[in-house]
């Protein structure tokens, strides 16, 4: 009888132990989104491998002018800054200051952030109640107290004001953003790489549309990657200055005179 009681007690202890292990194994966890690796694209902008030559300069400059003009009209910075403007106070409220978690409390924070933003619509005016202008669904993560540099997701017919008066832009497709610096709502401080697998169009008279492209938005300056024989050169628009960076030099180009001039004085004409 005593033996049976002892065996029963042992079984009880083992059952309790098993429950404890089960509870420990069920510790709360979170699942974080996998973010795209934009390393190759970032590297292409830092060190383009293509070469601008007299053979391709005319075509590349024309393409650069047309696509940069479309990007400038579409004004995606406007949309990004609107998102940052909404997001920044939310992150600050959660202890994310300057995109880094406050570490005073000896805490290591990992997080998954999912953001749904209603797009502002075609004008800067307050939209009518009930009007919908598409949305952005974005995800990113915090790893060991630091906000990831990549924010990615989908734009669903997202409409926002273009840079040209009375025109609007629409972004539709998968988007990937890489922030170079802490999030800022100031245009001058906003430096992003934008990758779009979809379309960015405007309703301006020129009716521009960019498809499946990437661009760098460096404050008021714009950069676009152009393919040249399997490598790339970087077209840029800095104020009124149009130019192209290649593997060797940074050229500024003037369409009227049909000349691109490098910093060392070398010129290419067409």
């Amino acid at each position, binding site marked *: 009888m005593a033996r049976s009681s002892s065996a029963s007690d042992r079984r009880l*202890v083992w059952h309790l132990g098993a429950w404890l292990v089960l509870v420990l194994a069920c*510790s709360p966890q*979170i699942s974080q989104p996998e973010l795209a690796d934009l390393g190759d694209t970032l590297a292409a902008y830092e060190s383009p491998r293509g070469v601008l030559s007299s053979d391709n300069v005319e075509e590349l400059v024309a393409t650069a002018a047309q696509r940069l003009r479309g990007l400038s009209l579409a004004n995606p910075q406007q949309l990004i800054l609107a998102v940052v403007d909404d997001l920044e106070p939310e992150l600050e409220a959660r202890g994310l200051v300057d995109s880094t978690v406050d570490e005073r409390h000896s805490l290591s924070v990992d997080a998954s952030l999912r953001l749904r933003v209603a797009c502002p619509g075609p004008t800067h005016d307050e939209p009518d109640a009930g009007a919908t202008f598409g949305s952005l669904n974005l995800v990113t993560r915090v790893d060991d107290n630091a906000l990831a540099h990549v924010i990615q997701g989908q734009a669903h017919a997202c409409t926002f004001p273009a840079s040209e008066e009375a025109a609007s832009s629409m972004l539709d497709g998968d988007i990937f953003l890489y922030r170079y610096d802490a999030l800022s709502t100031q245009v001058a401080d906003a430096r992003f790489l934008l990758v779009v697998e979809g379309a960015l169009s405007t309703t301006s008279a020129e009716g521009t549309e960019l498809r499946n492209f990437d661009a760098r938005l460096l404050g008021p300056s714009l950069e676009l990657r152009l393919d040249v024989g399997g490598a790339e050169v970087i077209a840029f628009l800095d104020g009124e200055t149009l130019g192209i960076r290649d593997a060797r030099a940074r050229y500024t180009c003037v369409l009227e005179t049909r000349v691109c001039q490098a910093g060392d004085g070398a010129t290419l004409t067409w």
Partner: protein
Amino acid sequence: MRTAKAAGLAAALLGVLLPSRASAYHDQNHGLIDYTAHSLNGGELRLGLFEQNVGIHRYVQVGTETLPWLASLFLRSVAPNVNVKLGLVRSKPFDLSLRGAVYYAYLAAEHSDAAGRGDLWLLPVSLYTSSRLLPWLSVHTEATFTWLAAGAKVDVEELSVRGTGISNSLQLGAMLEARVNPVVAVTLRGRLQPYTSPTVVRSRSGEADSFQLDADAKLSSNLSHVPLNVIAGLALSWKNVNLQFGMGFGNYFIPSFGVPIPGARLVPDGSFFVRF
């Protein structure tokens, strides 16, 4: 005069420490009931500074702790709690008990530009063993798993955040009880928290039709050491009156809640109750 006072004090101390069969309380059926597998016997009642219990059966003790009720005065909201201790094994040299408790608190705060309210649930489950190694020496062990859940809604200016948080921890404890006589026991108690789960906080903020942020965050402690303490003390048990006190060093574990406070310090310990 001073000699007479000292002698009186010594006599009183001896009165306490010397064995007295007439006042002996600790026997096989009346062990220490804090941090051990022992519990009140059926029909017994404990009224104490920190805990009130009643033995409703030989194997079942129920009770409530005082501190959360006192905290209600500051929280301006009732913080009820209840605990149950089940004697699973009651053999002469070895006892095994399971203790479960539930604590609840409703928290609310309001300032000029911010307001928040939330619920807090704390559910510790403890397994105790008590073993008599020698007639005068017992060892008690404890393993406590605590599940903490909180939900809150915070409004800061135009920002509104709803969230829930979950955290688990495992604490282990051991106590050596060296009995000097039926009234006096010297105790040496250690406690550590070898496992603390990351705290998972899920929150949602913003308006559903314009901007919404869902954040699932995992907060892990960067503390480089396991919270622990060691406390030496005395347990005095008369027929009805029980007094425990001691002093130790290490992390202070908040009574009732068992939450360790970072930083090593002197850790005072004390308990007083009557049992009848």
